């Protein structure tokens, strides 16, 4: 009797997950180097006939579910900050960092700092790999970071920030704090193509597009609403069926 109730509920749940993803994107609209989430949908199993007054040719779907499709690694807009330790990646690629727990990770957040022992670190404590030490007494404004990642202070080279890339960034796993760790699906980190360059004095903004996020939110919300109407109708039909016996 009226499987449509559950079918519609499954559809609503899928839209809810889409809304959660959009909410997360919007919450990170100002996070440096944030990449927005992708949600896809899939239909569920089909029931072949097997109900009163149907033939075997009739088939009935049982709803939809949401699928996580990873992230969109489209380039975010560059924001000028003028700070010498800010670097933005232009093109595909990541900075390689070692997280506090010892794991190797990748990030596109180039808001670099100098820690207590003079090393270049990300704001969340990830140490830039290979380790680059800034000598004591160096003025922050004297540091230059070249397009290829070469770091120098007063013209003296200190090291080179490695820019790496993976085969399919969609397969990366979020480690929090703007960092990702590689998985089998993403492939290993290899040197990024030469077209990927660093820009000093700028940061990459979040690639959440407000207008698009809003459109997606409205779309998901309306679909949610429409699907809820199917539940309402199924409910009314049950009421009508109840009305057969007064």
């Amino acid at each position: 009797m009226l499987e449509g109730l559950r079918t519609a509920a499954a559809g609503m749940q899928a839209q809810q997950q889409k809304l959660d993803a959009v909410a997360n994107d919007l919450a990170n609209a100002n996070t440096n180097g944030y990449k927005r989430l992708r949600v896809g949908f899939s239909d569920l199993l089909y029931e072949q006939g097997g109900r009163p007054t149907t033939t075997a040719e009739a088939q009935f779907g049982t709803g939809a579910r949401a699928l996580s499709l990873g992230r969109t690694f489209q380039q975010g807009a560059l924001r000028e900050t003028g700070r010498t330790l800010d670097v933005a990646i232009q093109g595909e690629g990541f900075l390689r960092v070692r997280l506090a727990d010892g794991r190797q990770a990748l990030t596109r957040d180039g808001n670099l700092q100098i820690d207590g022992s003079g090393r270049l670190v990300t704001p969340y404590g990830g140490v830039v790999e290979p380790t680059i030490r800034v000598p004591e007494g160096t003025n922050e404004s004297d540091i230059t970071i070249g397009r290829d990642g070469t770091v120098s202070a007063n013209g003296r080279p200190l090291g080179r920030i490695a820019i790496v890339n993976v085969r399919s960034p969609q397969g990366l796993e979020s480690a929090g704090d703007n960092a990702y760790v590689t998985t089998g699906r993403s492939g290993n980190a290899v040197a990024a193509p030469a077209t990927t360059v660093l820009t000093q004095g700028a940061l990459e903004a979040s690639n959440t597009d407000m207008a698009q996020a809003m459109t997606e939110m409205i779309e998901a919300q309306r679909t949610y609403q429409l699907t809820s109407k199917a539940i309402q109708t199924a409910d009314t039909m049950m009421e009508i069926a109840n009305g057969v016996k007064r």
Partner: protein
Amino acid sequence: MLAEQLRQDQIANDLANASTAGYKAERTIQRSFGELLLTNSVTGATIGSQSTAVQVTGTVTDWTPQPVKETGEPLDFAIVGEGFFAVRTGDGVRYTRNGAFAADANGVLVTSAGDPVLGRNNQPVRVGADGKVDPRALNVVLLANPEKAGNNLVTGTPAAGAAGAVRSGALEGSGADPTQSMVDMIASMRAYEAGQKVIRTIDETLGKAASSVGSLT
């Protein structure tokens, strides 16, 4: 009434899949059961035919290609025109029009369920070092009698003919039309209501027959 319930279930599924890439909308076909020819039991004159009920004989899927939406993702593919992507699943080769693919641990192009997508030579397609796949490398198959199998998959027999072209960085939209579904839903509910009224009228008539006929006062 039972047939309308089924129609309602099918509409609910269309609505639930209003955002599913490559989803195809469905319609139920209803047909009346065999009709009875009524005759006057005294004179033998025919009165007319009477239908006994309605049954759902099948669901038709509207396989018309839907508009393609740009996503800009390297591993999203859409077929512009007819045809399906071939996918190797545990149950044999299946087909799909949902081209939201990804790379697996071996660098093979897979569906969101992890099943390899087949190329022109019926072998899995490898994702290039740049994370891209040439859309022309993907096999597009025309099917003679496609039938939905769930999880975005379709079964069928490959047929000859010119299949559509594959475009990367795009997905096919859902074929579910919420406006049409809403209208159908209301129509179906009212038909259901009418069915209920018929039952109640028959009940009243029988009630009359049981209580009034033969009553002397």
